[in-house]
């Protein structure tokens, strides 16, 4: 399996791609925070924030609609917010009978539900933008400069490195199970649910042991190559004047969205 099977990085040579990853991380976080701060029903501000996301996408030379297409990943979670439609007090906009009772959707409830979904939908676009324009090792560097504990960063970087190796390992286990699981065309196959769970559990245990052994092997190999408990990098990652300028522009634009949210 190749890295590209997972990674959503888009190879381009845009201004955004050249930007220091720290600046991009901060822009994304400010954008998400700003969405969270917008009051319910600030439609004009939501529209402006979407405009900002579109602008960021086009400056980064992402394929048109790229952010939009991938942004529905968080939508199933909206199910969790459905209840506010009925529980937020307000004037009823829609009533319908259900089991000899009437239930009503209030206008405030509708506004709150839509606002929650839009906020999350916009924020996901910000996160996709960051991933699409920043290579993962650079992203890790940015987080390190932003005072995330060094050791945690090293662990996540290491995980990223071996994700694909272990995903391959898991695929092999799944393929082996499939190869040994014949089923008649009609009728039930396999044993009881308990038995199936035991097989799956055995596979997980097997994967665990293989991973553990691999980590020991890798550690020995790292020691042999002079590892002293720190992952080193050749990339200096210095915030240049241009990075500060672009970060400043983004902050001003996001502040503008907030102003729109309070005024209209």
């Amino acid at each position: 399996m190749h890295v590209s099977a997972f990674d959503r990085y888009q190879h381009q040579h845009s201004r955004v791609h050249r930007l220091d990853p720290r600046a991009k991380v901060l822009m994304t976080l400010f954008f998400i925070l700003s969405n969270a701060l917008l009051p319910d029903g600030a439609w004009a501000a939501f529209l402006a924030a979407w405009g900002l996301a579109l602008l960021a996408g086009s400056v980064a030379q992402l394929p048109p609609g790229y952010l939009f297409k991938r942004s529905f990943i968080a939508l199933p979670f909206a199910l969790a917010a459905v209840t506010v439609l009925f529980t937020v007090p307000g004037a009823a906009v829609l009533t319908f009978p259900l089991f000899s009772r009437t239930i009503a959707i209030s206008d405030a409830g509708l506004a709150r539900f839509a606002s929650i979904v839009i906020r999350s939908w916009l924020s996901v676009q910000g996160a996709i933008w960051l991933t699409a324009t920043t290579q993962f090792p650079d992203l890790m560097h940015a987080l390190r400069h932003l005072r995330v504990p060094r050791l945690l960063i090293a662990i996540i970087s290491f995980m990223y490195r071996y994700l694909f190796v272990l995903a391959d390992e898991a695929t092999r286990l799944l393929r082996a199970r499939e190869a040994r699981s014949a089923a008649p065309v009609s009728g039930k196959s396999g044993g009881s649910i308990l038995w199936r769970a035991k097989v799956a559990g055995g596979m997980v245990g097997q994967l665990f042991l293989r991973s553990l052994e691999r980590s020991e092997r890798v550690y020995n190999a790292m020691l042999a190559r002079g590892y002293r408990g720190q992952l080193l990098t050749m990339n200096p990652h210095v915030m240049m004047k241009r990075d500060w300028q672009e970060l400043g522009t983004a902050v001003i634009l996001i502040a503008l969205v907030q102003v729109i949210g309070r005024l209209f």
Partner: protein
Amino acid sequence: MFFASIQTLHIPDGFLSLFIAGLCWVVAIGFILLAIRRSQRSFDERLVPLAGMMAAFIFAGQMINFPVAGGTSGHFIGAALAAVALGPWLGILVMTAVIALQALLFQDGGLVVMGANILVMGITPALISYGLYRAVSHRPRRVQMITIAASAWLSIMGAALVTALLLGFSGTSSFRVAVPALLGVHALIGIGEALITAAALNLIMKTRPQLLQSSAAVGGRGWIASGVALTLLVILLAPFASRFPDGLEWVAAENGFLDTAVTAPFQLLPGYTIPILGAGSLSTIVASLIGALLAAAIMIILARLIHGRQAKMKRLRD
């Protein structure tokens, strides 16, 4: 295909209030810093390759499932296995790495609410599963296995309850619905996790018994106490949490306009009871069951839809 696992507990950005998200970060950061210090003490420079590989293992292990019935499948989630096999501190660190990578690389879970996700999927399950396991770690293997299965199930329920509470206090969900719905769905998901975790640890115990002995040596009485206490809290709180006043009502009560607000037009299951059964606890239980069944039905339909689409896409690719 790999990400089709039902991971409803990955909270996306926008669903929690900033205050709640910040509070979760404070708790999460405290635990992470402690976990780093403790793990570094016991593993030294071996820590990075070990924890990194184990985090990748959890991620890859989540691909492994088993068919249950009607197109649904049991899944492995991993927090309980990590805590029991590697010790709670390393377990929390590994789950933190998994959650961070899922959010950064796949937008599975939000960035600003990542602290909440670490609290839900990393810290809560580690406390419950390791605490309960540690309480029986010197007992016969049969007892250990049953405890591990039960604690894995409880750790999922605990995670679901914490999620429901966070959503409720943020004013995103009504406690009346979120608590029984999330607990109901995860009661089913938890069974898959419990069976897989127990079977996996059974294999590990048989082949590498010294591994579990060293993980059991990590935590002392404090872990047993906090694990048991948290478990009791989950069990005791679950039936009552659905009666909490909603987050929005809290805000309203603080500002003193609760009386002037129009009464909630939510009349489907008033007070989360069935009208004909009166207001007793039986009524609440039946209402919770109906809520859980409804939620489970919706989840199964959604899962089938998604599964069907993916199968079609796979056929197209092949």
